[in-house]
């Protein structure tokens, strides 16, 4: 049985249909990326899956006892609220110091425990959010544009971390992104969303789908080319670690992709 499943899900916000008849499922241990332009209903879909929004039609079915770790798109800690990273990890469930330290070490920021959340860099902040989500020992991680505000190396490193965590714990990952390059490399399955599901499949299949080209077609030549390039490149050298290899060498192309996209 799937961990979580949406069946014919439609969501209306202020009388406007934001999502129509979305059907998707996430199986144990897979990384699924939802890709779509701004306003395509990506965050809305996640919020419906989390049970925050009530569907106008259709339903969300969760496996019984499913534990979800959620990393929100943007969390601003008001300056009026003092909060160390260590304290944040204990919300809403208190965790032991040893577990908190282990979680921070796992996501690569063991040194921030005593720092104020508001003083962390973007990358550190996202890692602390991830550490908190992992502390609940989730079956499914839901990440909403987790790398927004990170630079390219930071973004690549964050996605590598997600893959490592998946490999170690077998957690399934459902994330939302508009970043074509890194996301595609990291995903088992990509779902293109624009109010409804346009296309779905492995990264390679989706990137060649006409629906995908229609959605991201104009100005994404660079990104598409880059994606192909990364794959071909990695196949030349090393099948197992091709993705990481591609990231490390992808910077000039990525710059170009961004320009094209803008």
């Amino acid at each position, binding site marked *: 049985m799937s961990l979580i499943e949406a069946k014919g899900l439609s969501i209306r916000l202020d009388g406007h249909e934001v999502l129509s008849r979305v059907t998707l499922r996430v199986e144990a241990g897979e990384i699924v990326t939802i890709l779509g332009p701004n306003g395509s209903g990506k965050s809305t879909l996640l*919020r419906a899956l*989390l*049970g*925050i929004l009530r569907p106008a039609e259709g339903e969300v079915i969760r496996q019984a006892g499913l534990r*979800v770790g*959620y990393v*929100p798109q943007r*969390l601003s*800690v*008001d300056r*009026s*609220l*003092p*909060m*160390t990273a260590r*304290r*944040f990890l*204990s*919300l*809403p*469930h*208190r965790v032991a110091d040893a577990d908190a330290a282990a979680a921070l070490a796992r996501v690569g920021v063991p040194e921030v425990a005593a720092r*104020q959340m508001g003083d962390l860099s973007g990358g550190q902040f996202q890692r602390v959010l991830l550490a908190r989500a992992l502390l*609940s020992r989730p079956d499914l991680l*839901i990440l909403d544009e987790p790398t927004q505000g990170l630079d390219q190396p930071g973004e690549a490193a964050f996605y590598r971390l997600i893959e490592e965590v998946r490999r170690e714990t077998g957690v399934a990952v459902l994330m939302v992104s508009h970043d074509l390059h890194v996301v595609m490399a990291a995903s088992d399955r990509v779902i293109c969303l624009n109010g409804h599901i346009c296309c779905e499949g492995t990264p390679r299949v989706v990137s060649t789908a006409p629906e995908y080209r229609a959605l991201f077609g104009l100005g994404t030549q660079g990104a598409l080319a880059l994606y192909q390039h990364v794959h071909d490149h990695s196949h030349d050298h090393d099948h197992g670690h091709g993705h990481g290899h591609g990231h490390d060498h992808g910077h000039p192309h990525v710059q170009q992709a961004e320009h094209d996209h803008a």
Partner: protein
Amino acid sequence: MLDDFLIRASLAALGLSLATGALGSFVVWRRMAYFGDATAHAAILGVALALATDLPVGAGTLAVALAMAVTVSTLAARGWAMDTTLGVLAHSALAIGLVAVSFVPGARTDLQAYLFGDILAVSKGDVGFIWAGAGLVLALLLWRWQALLTATLNADLAHASGLNPDRERLVLTLALALVVAVALKVVGALLIAAMLIIPAAAARGLARNPESMAILATLIGAGAALGGLQLSLWQDTPAGPSIIAVAAGLFVLSASFGRMRRN
């Protein structure tokens, strides 16, 4: 011992600060300052209604404060332009309350006591009411502490953790109405919000975690309450405003200390 008016006043002030430290911290974190004002100002209308219907003033205040708090909270949930809405509600509540009080025979003479408090005249019964109300608020906040903090940080995060942010907001709404009813006699309707915000704001610069901020706010509130009472006795100043004035002094001290430490 309780026969001494000063002891009763001190106990009343300490009881109030027990509730305002923690609740005031939430008011600051959630930017509910105007919310506090609207609820507190509604208390005057509650006084007028209680006097007109021969109900206990505490009950009238609590009922109207609760109605106002729920109204504001509901409007906020619907995403109204809160700054303007709260401004309209806060000042209208005060004005309509004052007009209503003027219709009640005899109440005009006591008006100052409701606006600025009358802590030197609290009875044993008042002290009991204040401690019961403050204790209830503190118990409510401690019970929901983790959930309230999570919901304050981010509603979606709370939702994803299986909490209901709306319910947590209701807890704070209820606590606020209770504190307004309790604080009316101590600092008066006009300065209740000040008693919530100023000690918490003074504690902010000295705290690294939510808990230490709430505890510090409680201590600063208690210090201001006792210091204000002394000031009032010594210089024959009105007690409620004296308490807030001392709290404001502590805020300035804390802010300068925080600035010194940063430099």
